[in-house]
């Protein structure tokens, strides 16, 4: 384990800046705050048990680390401490289940209509809540039935001499939002790229945030094995899932302590999708044949997106679209934090955390919102009652690709990522 993370606690001067930003400790007394649970309690966490288990109420949004002026890795310390708590207690079935999106995806996809009925049936959800502990009102996506991996197999790629880019789509795109993946491919191809979609599995992030580090490491290594050969060829890897992208850029190393050459080369090749496209624009290589999109859309940069430290490239890109007005929202967190808000005992907290974001979105009067992260989109759709889309969907429409692109995309773009919560 690299102990840059734990050692950073000595830089803590107890200034309370992290406490004044923590969205969870402001929403519930059950979490005493990042300073207390992090650098302070960490001093007492030796080989023995953690001094208290309140750290499990940390949602892992990571805002504390971003705002800390002394470079203390507060969220990372807390993430490791949470894993220690669960290592002793044993991870409950629910957390093992929701932390494995590929397992859920493979189970649900073949029986999508039935699974979707069950996911959105109140009686079923009430039973699920009392038996497993997933809150009956928590936002759930719908299985698409045909995964993005399967759809992309029938896709005829651009000619072989075009510059190539590797697409890491993540589980959300694969099982629930394959239309987003198709828009990503269409926009990249529109800009002259050949898109390589390697076979891929979960990045291990949900396992990490649910405290199962050994399993998380297995998933990271399996994924890295598939991406590293492309990275070694010097190809960029893009991801439309900001949290999964951040896992490969930084967290697998910093939190899970994976210190292998293959991961390093993948980390160095990872781009958030909007970061990649904005980078193209900076070099004058992005097509700007955008059509008018007369919409006003509030935009929420999710916590994990801000963890990249890349600014807000989605806003930079969408500013290029004629007549499209984006409203930059300034509430930090939507509350869902991956699987946190699904849990029976944490759902109310996650909704309280998100309430200001929801009301700010409602106040804009728009029935559409944009956000880079899939679980955050599902939470926003649920909490604010709007359609929440990835920024790529607005770019896709502005390029006119919903009219000119392959069959199936039109319907997908129109349907968008709405969720019945």
């Amino acid at each position, binding site marked *: 384990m690299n102990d840059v993370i734990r050692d950073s606690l000595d830089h803590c001067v107890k200034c309370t800046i992290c406490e*004044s930003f923590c969205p969870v400790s402001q929403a519930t007394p059950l979490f005493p705050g990042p300073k207390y649970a992090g650098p302070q309690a960490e001093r007492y966490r030796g080989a023995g048990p953690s001094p208290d288990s309140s750290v499990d109420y940390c949602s892992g949004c990571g805002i504390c680390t971003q705002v800390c002026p002394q470079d203390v890795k507060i969220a990372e310390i807390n993430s490791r401490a949470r894993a220690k708590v669960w290592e002793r207690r044993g991870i409950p079935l629910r957390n093992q289940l929701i932390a494995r999106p590929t397992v859920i995806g493979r189970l649900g996809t073949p029986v999508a209509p039935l699974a979707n009925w069950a996911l959105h049936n109140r009686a079923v959800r009430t039973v699920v809540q009392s038996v497993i502990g997933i809150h009956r009102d928590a936002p759930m996506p719908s299985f698409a039935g045909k995964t993005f991996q399967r759809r992309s197999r029938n896709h005829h790629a651009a000619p072989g001499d075009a510059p190539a880019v590797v697409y890491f789509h993540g589980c959300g795109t694969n099982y629930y939002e394959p239309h987003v993946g198709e828009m990503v491919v269409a926009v990249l191809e529109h800009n002259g790229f050949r898109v390589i979609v390697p076979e891929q599995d979960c990045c291990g992030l949900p396992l990490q945030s649910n405290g199962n580090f050994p399993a998380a490491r297995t998933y990271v290594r399996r994924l890295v094995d598939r991406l590293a050969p492309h990275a070694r060829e010097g190809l960029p890897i893009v991801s439309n899932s900001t949290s999964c992208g951040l896992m490969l850029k930084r967290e697998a190393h910093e939190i899970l302590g994976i210190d292998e050459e293959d991961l390093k080369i993948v980390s160095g090749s990872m781009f958030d999708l909007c970061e990649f496209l904005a980078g193209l624009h*900076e070099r004058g290589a992005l097509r700007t044949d955008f059509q008018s999109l007369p919409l006003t859309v509030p935009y929420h940069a999710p916590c994990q997106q801000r963890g990249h430290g890349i600014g807000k490239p989605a806003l930079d890109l969408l500013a290029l679209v004629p007549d499209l007005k984006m409203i930059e929202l300034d509430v930090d967190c939507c509350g869902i934090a991956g699987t946190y808000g699904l849990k029976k005992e944490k759902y109310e907290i996650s909704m309280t955390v998100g309430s200001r974001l929801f009301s700010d979105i409602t106040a804009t009067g728009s029935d559409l919102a944009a956000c880079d992260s899939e679980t955050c989109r599902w939470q926003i759709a649920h909490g604010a009652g709007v359609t929440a889309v990835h920024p790529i969907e607005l770019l896709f429409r502005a390029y006119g690709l919903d009219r000119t692109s392959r069959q199936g995309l039109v319907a997908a773009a129109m349907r968008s990522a709405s969720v019945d919560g």
Partner: protein
Amino acid sequence: MSYDTLVVGAGIAGLTAALRLTEQGQRVLIAARGVGATHLAPATIDVLGYLGDARVESPAGSMKALLAASPDHPYRHIPADQLAASLTWFTARAGTLGYVGSLEENMLLPTALGVPRPSALAPQTMSAGDLRAGGRFVFVGVKGFKDFHPALIAENLVRAELSQPVTARAVELEAPPGGLGDLSGRVIAGRFDDDDLSHWLAGELVNRTEPDERIGVPAVLGVRSATETWGELERTLERKVFEVSTLPPSIPGIRLYEAMARALRAGGARIVHGVRVVGAHANDGRIASVDVVNATGTVSHPIGSVVLASGGFASGGLELDSFGVTRETVFDLPLIGVPTTERVRFAPGYFDAQPLARAGVATDDLLRPVDAAGRPVYTNLHAAGAIVGGAVPWKEMSGTGISIATGYAAAEAILAPATLAVSEAVR
């Protein structure tokens, strides 16, 4: 995306420079390791509070004496009319926080320890705490809120040196109903925003204070609508009410940060926390690009100008290593005010005049860091705030004043050549 100016640091100095540049049409990126001192300091604007041990009554009137005693002081580069202009500009940008005061006279506001603090400007919600006219004060705490101690304030205040007699007493209220868990300033402020605790507070205060008393409450009257809450309290009680700063976090500072950050976002500026600026690539004495470390690694941003507002020792803009070497951490700039290793770096008493306290960069009148020969290190690099050497802000009570004045002046220096170029083109 390319930016006109990169501002390093998101404290008052960085926010001031960035906002001034943004509203003049520049595209600005703020890259910061984290949040600055806004969230810790009481959000008063202290231009000059002490000359030696003597309290300053008029910052404007004492400026000449300050510069005579501290010839390297950052204010040396700020003409009097520009200092005034920067504060007028700041007051307008702070908007609904309603800053009051002037350069001509310091208010004396009680601190969290009950010490009279000389400040040129203060948020409207604090201004009735001015001790200069004397009178009867009551300080109100809340049981369980551990960051505010009304008895300590009251007892210290009656011992303070004041020209008019002051009486002060303390009142402790039961915690507001409905709350659970730890009562932090942030949690109470959130409840003022969401649950409207002002009715509760007014109800408690009406019977426990006298009509001729001025009522000091902890500065937790909300983040989003404190000025309204405060106004409503004064109207309901028909008494003077004022906020007193608490131990950190500073809710008035959070309000100020959010007001400035909101204005920056509205103007299209980008604020990125949790990243580190680690160096520059220069051409012909100009910075052409800066290196920023983010989650991926090091990314180079081509840039027109740079404002270094990285703070002093406390914020990591300056560093003293175990070999006794002091350095500027971002661009490794030459420093002034660093005692040579043969001399003592620290005085024995914590509150003594510390030899290292004046360390920082020296600048020219355009706030550009200069080398020993007085030449700018880079022609498009400007410095603002605590990184500028020659001052002892915590002794002088001049920190926020220096930050606003130098942040504003750095922005003006960046804008000036453009203004010249435009007028030449017109000609």
